[in-house]
């Protein structure tokens, strides 16, 4: 592949999405104040669908002078990212702020731009593209977090995420500059050769890699770079939390896999131990720290920390099977996580949002369908067969075992036992605790999302074959 070829069609989905974003922004501005949300949301959803369609059809190849690449892996991740964005926008449709107004119409647009950044990350072929995509994605999220300006928690969330995110971006950028300094190039293809050429990778390069790892780990909210997660998850408006738990994670993983398996694949033993350590810490901390939580959004924050740990097991395996396992895990994580957030968004009483786990008491009787869906998601998160979560966990465990990471597998098994406690506690509260006051009936869009995700979680086993083969293709594409 020649670096001089411009080949702009490989980025067609991104271009369409970016143009749509601008159009929607204009359309929203033209509406009366406070009434543009619905139109913007519908248009965004349509844009996501069109973009997703284009992603599936988009040709493989590199473009934009070697800064952009489209392959099976990128398509897989982009579909996941777009799905995450789609679900988040869908959840935001029925969302009402504490003063019972819809979110501002910029919300879907910001989610759209953040998704665009995430897609760029998945397609990056150059450390610079990586950074630009990452910043586009992150800056949008900073704003999204602080959308409810009147809400102290929301403002705090936005502020914290912004400061810590800046720190992480700084670290990442510093790492990139070190790598550039030692390798003389920022293109992945060039980096591959540079790293392979060195008998012993220079210390500066290693330091650069570590800095990049740390920057990405921050995005993944992996321990010990996770500290922002609970506060931000709790403070941000629920649809935004749902978004953060989805698309950006997939993008960060896409980057992680692309950078680590690609340019730095030949020095895997040097960074494998780091990923392993981070994975173990995330799994254990996610399992333990979730136990005393009473707020379900905070609980889901720790849950996502744990899940990122499990997904990183596949990365730590540093093999094609490991990459494939991580991709399958992320797909499973997407369906159950989106379903849970649909349930959380539906938690309203007399029009006001409630977030305490205790508020779910008696849901088994007052809303059996929603309770059943939530129970399915919780069991899936535990990893109970035959639900989606089981296959994800099984595959990463198998991949790690094959790579000889026995300690990692054992820790993973133990921490999922501990984790089962807090997931099943939610089920117990819904079905066995004395009923709290009845929650409002969920909006149709939420029923649609939770029902769809519930079905996906249950029938995951049926479509596992196709998903695995697509993931396998993606993993092969990544390995080159």
């Amino acid at each position: 592949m020649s670096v001089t070829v411009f080949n702009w069609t490989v980025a067609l989905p991104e271009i369409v999405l970016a143009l749509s974003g601008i159009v929607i922004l204009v359309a929203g501005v033209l509406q009366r104040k406070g009434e543009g949300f619905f139109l913007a949301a519908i248009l965004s959803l349509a844009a996501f669908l069109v973009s997703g369609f284009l992603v599936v059809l988009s040709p493989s190849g590199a473009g934009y002078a070697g800064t952009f690449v489209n392959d099976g892996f990128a398509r897989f991740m982009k579909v996941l990212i777009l799905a995450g964005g789609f679900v988040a926008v869908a959840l935001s449709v029925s969302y009402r702020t504490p003063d019972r107004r819809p979110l501002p119409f910029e919300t879907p647009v910001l989610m759209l731009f953040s998704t665009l950044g995430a897609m760029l990350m998945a397609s990056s072929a150059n450390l610079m593209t990586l950074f630009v995509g990452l910043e586009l994605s992150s800056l949008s999220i900073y704003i999204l977090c602080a959308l409810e300006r009147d809400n102290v928690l929301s403002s705090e969330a936005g502020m914290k995420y912004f400061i810590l995110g800046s720190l992480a971006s700084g670290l990442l950028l510093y790492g990139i500059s070190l790598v550039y300094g030692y390798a003389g190039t920022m293109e992945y293809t060039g980096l591959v050769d540079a790293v392979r050429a060195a008998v012993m990778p220079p210390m500066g390069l290693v330091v650069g890699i570590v800095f990049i790892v740390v920057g990405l780990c921050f995005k993944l909210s992996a321990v010990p770079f996770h500290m922002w997660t609970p506060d931000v998850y709790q403070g941000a408006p629920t649809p935004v939390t749902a978004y953060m738990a989805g698309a950006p994670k997939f993008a960060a993983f896409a980057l992680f896999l692309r950078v680590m398996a690609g340019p730095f694949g030949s020095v895997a033993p040097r960074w494998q131990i780091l990923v392993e350590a981070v994975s173990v810490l995330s799994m254990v901390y996610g399992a333990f720290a979730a136990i005393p939580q009473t707020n379900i959004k905070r609980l889901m924050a720790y849950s996502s920390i744990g899940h990122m740990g499990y997904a990183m097991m596949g990365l730590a395996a540093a093999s094609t099977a490991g990459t494939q396992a991580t991709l399958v895990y992320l797909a499973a994580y997407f369906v159950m996580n989106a379903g849970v957030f649909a349930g959380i968004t539906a938690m309203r009483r007399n029009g006001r949002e409630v977030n305490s786990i205790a508020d779910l008491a008696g849901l088994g009787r007052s809303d059996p369908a929603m309770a059943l869906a939530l129970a399915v998601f919780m069991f899936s998160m535990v990893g109970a067969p035959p639900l989606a979560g089981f296959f994800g966990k099984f595959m990463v465990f198998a991949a790690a075992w094959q790579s000889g990471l026995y300690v990692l597998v054992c820790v993973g098994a133990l921490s999922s036992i501990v984790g089962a406690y807090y997931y099943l506690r939610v089920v117990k509260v819904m079905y066995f605790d004395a009923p709290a006051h009845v929650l409002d009936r969920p909006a149709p869009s939420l029923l649609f999302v939770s029902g769809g995700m519930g079905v996906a979680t249950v029938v995951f086993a049926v479509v596992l074959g196709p998903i695995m083969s697509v993931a396998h293709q993606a993993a092969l594409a990544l390995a080159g």
Partner: protein
Amino acid sequence: MQTELTLFSVAVLTPLAGAVVAGLGGRFMGDTLAKVVAIACMAVAALCSMGALCNAWLEGFPHAAVPLAQWVHAGGFDATWTLRFDTLSVTMTAMVLTVSLLVHCYSIGYMSHESMPTYRFFSYLSLFTFAMLMLVSSNDLIQLFFGWEGVGLASYLLIGYWYDRPAATAAAIKAFVVNRVADLFFIVGIGLIYVLFHSVQYDTIFSAVPEVLNAPYSLCGVSFRMLEVICFLLFVGAMGKSAQLFLHTWLPDAMEGPTPVSALIHAATMVTAGVFLMARMSPLLEFAPGTRTFVILIGATTCFFAATVGMVQPDIKRTIAYSTCSQLGYMFAAVGVGAYQAAVFHLTTHAFFKALLFLAAGSVIHAMHDEQNMFRMGGLWKKLPVTYVVMWLGSLALAGVYPFAGYWSKDAILNALWASDASYSHYAWAMGSITAFLTAFYSWRLLFLVFHGKPHDDHARDHAHESPAVMIVPLLVLSVGAVVAGVVLAPFYIGAHQSAFWNGAIVNAPANHIMEVFEHVPALIALLPSLAGLAGIALAFVLYVSAPQMPAALARSFGPIYRFLLNKWYFDELYDRIFVRPYAALARVLWKGADEGVVEGLPLDIVRATQDGALQAVRLQSGSIAIYAFTMLAGLVVLLTVALCG
């Protein structure tokens, strides 16, 4: 030939039908009808068994096998449901069914005051009878074991029939557990037989005995004769069922069951299963002299031990229970010297007079409104004349007074013990003769205490009444048996016609002439048991009629001995110390230490650690952005260090 086989099959299987119909259908068909069905089945079975016996007798006791069904067929192992038809099984079947029918009838009267429906009781009795019949009519050891366990189960159910009484429940469990201990040996014995003979079928085993006489069996480097080991194991099994010394502790406690149960199971039939097994295995046992010596020792010692304990018991049923234990000792002693015929003869006569004694005792208990302590009775003979008379007859038979049934069989055993040249046979003879004296003593002690002397409680005596006819008639029938069974059956069981009668059902080795020589003993020796019996009666008369204050004085002056006997040689206490308490202590250690401490405690500790860990983990989450940033940088430094140094 076909007639008696059919009759025999009907006799064996009808009690099962009675048990099933009465037990499962009793709720729907009503108590009375269920009882009628059970008793009718039993009557049919008893008649058929009599018919089979008479026919067989007329035809000279042919051997036959009646195949019923396939049971186990696996590889080289084959077990079928087959009824064995020979002298031993036919006579045993007739005896069991006769006693069982009488006990069924008697139970109608005895159980009439129960507040609950009693069809369950009758169903259990029939079930027991069926199991006992399977045991005696078995053609291989597996079916025998089936019957063996069946009677154990029925015994458990019947001892614990009054399940609301803790003592009855405990006694039932004790009987079951003690029998399990013995059964373990038994089943290992059966396993070794299969190893040695590749079959569990009697005829195959017996015909192969000459080929394996010296087959060795090595255990921990010590070599034994395999036949000895097998016979020893089978004998230990028999010891449990027949309540021989060391495994006898369950029998007295089993008296917690209703009295008809004691009569049927714990006197006439089940406890004789061990003796039956020995007789059935005579072709094997004849070639295990070591085991037979052991049998003599255990039998003779049990005989003496139980009689001594029986002398001082205050409970009327326990006295008779120890008497049973003691009489079983006689039978085993006879087995030990090779006089199997004499053992089975005593088994048969004993079944009549011991069932009679138990049922008569039940009649007394019934009349006294469930009072079992003999010292609270007295002067009852005018009130219970029939019971009094049959009790006399039963006691005369038990004591072995001429010409009652016990005389013939006990005399034969003691003579055989004297005449035998087996080691320890004279020890057994001495023990047996002393026991004859003791037996007479405790029998008449019972009679005098219950029926003579001053009534302890006038009120109770005045309210005592003779039992109804349904209880009296079985007593009369049994007393006829107790009187004439000996003199009628002796020529066939042990006398001139014995070889034609047994027709090979019991085997004496060519070198074993005991059944011919036992009659040629000095006249004094032959007379001694009778004299001893009369002396025992006289002593009882002196102590309990002439000088009623004497027993108490004796008990005071021989305090330690009295207490030793009263406490049954302290066997229960000994077992409690040796087995029960260490076992309970071990169980408590495992319960408190292993189960509650480790199995339950460990998860709780883990839970506590998890909770603490969770709280610690959350405390890191302080909300301070400086700490968050610091943690990130610290993490970066650690990762850097690992990457550079790793």
